[in-house]
């Protein structure tokens, strides 16, 4: 995996610094990969409509949320190599802000969830300046602490319903034309957020900023010596990695009809997102997507199968162990090592 990253770094580093914005856009439009993302997003968005399958929509919706979580977390874990264990705090907090604005203040849903994203990113930037001074395991522990502290705070925060959380009434869906069309609306938006997450991952990877982040991931001290403003860059990537998950949180909990602290700040979901990244391949753009879809299919399968439903946790654990021990590059890392031509198509 490190070798493939350094090749990516080398590739991203070949462009000349002075380039006009139009050139910059043109350079990306010429590449096949961003188009793959757009097509993929459109296919996911339209599949349940074309196949007229609501069950498929529910399954894809969860997958889209997972892709959003995994691919934004990948910015920290795969690019900057900072292990963020408490990433779910973005999702939960964004969910609370979004749902609260949409229900208590009757703000337009899209504006509410965007506000959630902005607030969370701003908070993440402030927090990031503090805890990103920690390295390795210390940082990982701190992110758990932040999640648990905010979890405990929200549990006691009465305006957000404390431990009970916020229940949405059926009226909340009226501006969207009732619950039926409201759920479709949330689905399209979540798929859109998923597509944006992937484009974001791509844009960062091919930018100068991204190069700095990847350098931090490879060797932070060396990056600092070479002039990468590491504290600021780290705080910025931390803030960016919080934005889209927060937006997704708002949409997801609005769609679920209830948000309560234990569901919103569940550390297990945090770790599941890491598992997805590992399954697909850390540091790549396609990897978290493959990982999220595989994971969602697998959990769904285990859940629906009569034989395995009691042992689903055991099987998921065993699979994770095998990947960590024997396939640390994930599925994509494994494939790319064997089929080099894939690299252009699956970055």
């Amino acid at each position, binding site marked *: 995996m490190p070798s493939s990253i350094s090749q990516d770094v080398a590739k991203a580093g070949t462009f000349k610094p002075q380039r006009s914005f139009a050139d910059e856009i043109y350079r990306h439009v010429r590449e096949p990969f961003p188009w793959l993302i757009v097509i993929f997003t459109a296919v996911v968005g339209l599949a349940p409509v074309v196949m007229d*399958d*609501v*069950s*498929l*929509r*529910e*399954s894809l*919706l*969860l997958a889209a949320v997972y892709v959003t979580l995994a691919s934004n977390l990948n910015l920290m874990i795969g690019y900057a190599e900072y292990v963020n264990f408490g990433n779910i705090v973005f999702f939960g907090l964004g969910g609370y802000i979004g749902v609260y604005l949409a229900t208590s203040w009757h703000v337009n849903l899209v504006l509410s969830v965007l506000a959630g994203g902005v607030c969370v990113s701003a908070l993440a930037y402030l927090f990031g300046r503090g805890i990103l001074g920690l390295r390795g395991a210390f940082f990982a522990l701190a992110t758990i602490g932040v999640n648990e502290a905010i979890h405990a705070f929200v*549990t006691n925060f009465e305006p957000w319903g*404390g*431990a*009970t*959380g916020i*229940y*949405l*009434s*059926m*009226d909340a869906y009226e501006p969207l034309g009732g*619950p*039926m069309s409201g*759920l479709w609306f949330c689905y399209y938006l979540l798929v859109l957020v998923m597509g944006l997450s992937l484009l974001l991952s791509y844009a960062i990877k091919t930018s100068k900023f991204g190069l700095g982040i990847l350098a931090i991931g490879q060797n932070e001290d060396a990056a600092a010596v070479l002039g990468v403003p590491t504290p600021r860059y780290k705080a910025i990537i931390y803030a960016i990695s919080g934005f889209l998950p927060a937006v997704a949180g708002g949409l997801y909990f609005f*769609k*679920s*009809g*209830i948000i*309560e602290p*234990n*569901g919103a700040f*569940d550390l297990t*979901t945090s770790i599941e997102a890491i598992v997805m990244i590992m399954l697909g391949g850390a540091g790549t753009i396609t990897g978290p997507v493959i990982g999220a*879809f595989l994971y969602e*299919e697998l959990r*769904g*399968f285990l*859940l*629906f*199968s*009569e*034989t395995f*439903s*009691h042992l*689903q*946790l055991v099987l998921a654990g065993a699979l994770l162990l095998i990947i960590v021990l024997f396939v640390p590059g994930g599925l994509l890392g494994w494939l790319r090592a064997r089929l080099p031509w894939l690299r252009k198509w699956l970055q």
Partner: protein
Amino acid sequence: MRKGFYLLAAAAFLAAGPALAEDTVTIGFTASQTGKLNNDSTSQLRGFELWRDDVNAKGGIKAGGKSYKVKFVSYDDESQGTRVQQLYTRLITQDKAQFLFSPYSSGLVATAAIISEQYGKVMMSIGGAEEKTYKLGNKYLFQTYTGASQYLAGALDVLKHKNPKAKIAFVYEDDPFSKAVAQATRELAKKDGFTVALEESYSSSTTDFGPIINKVISSGADALLGGGHYADGSTLARQLHDQKAKLKWVTLLVAPDSPNFSKLGDSAVGISVPSQWEPQVTYKPDFGPTPAEFAKEFTAKYKIAPGYHAAGGYSGAMILQHAIEKAGSIDPKKVAAELNKTDVTTFFGKCKFSTDPKSHGLQIGHTMVLAQWQMKDGKLVKEVIWPDNAKTANIMY
């Protein structure tokens, strides 16, 4: 990939159950086979299964000249809301469930209701006592339990009778249900002229009640009302005893109802619990088994006495069956209309649903009893002590 999984899953189902030729009615639900709600959810599930076996043994549900065998489709919701909507959508669109039972616990009920309402499917809510869920504008959701705000009303009546000037400490679990109960009761208590000496909530995972009990002692309270679910409630009872908190009256939610509570020995003596149902109650049912018959049948099958979760499961399903038979059809609209008119007594007690659009489906017929663990001939037994017309023993204060 996806198709492949579904085919596999479908094959597993086909292998599991033989194809049925006669008319069937499919009822879908999720149960918490794993996760923290597993204990309570399982006894409810047993209630469902016992009902299904009874109905099918008698030839099924008879409606409009046909008889429908009952078939269950259920999945594990892992005690979490994450997959509830996915699973209920699947139950309705793929498994073609005609009727639904709710998941266990208030939060999950609210999540599932958004799906069942969209498809206009009747969902019997068994195990969601929190009233908030029923004030969200649902039309097809029907609650069989007495709502949260009524849970401790009986305990207050007893206190009024025994010590009208009692100082009460409210100590309750920080979850939607217990909190709704405690807050409603606190208002009632203030109105009745009691002093609220202390109010503390604790997180669901609390195991060390030492600090709280010290606070209770410091507050000089006579009575403690609160608790939450099994794990925390039994711990609280045990530690109250260990730390010799000199309380004259303790009523805890849910936990003391379980037969397992007697394992606490001396710690259990005198502890009372509001209960939806006890095997000793003497309701005269309009149809279905009597309380004693149900308890006997359940004990014979599962080798454990039924708690109210099990009884609630059975009777909730039976109310649905009754409505289907009255409607003479399995059309959800007709059945919902019958449920709106329901006003019956089963072995579980009275059942009547609110038809006010603001609180549609809320249970307004059923009443609770108060049970207390007492020492009788050297053995711990749970006696019904309130209301007077249902009591099997005197109050021990």
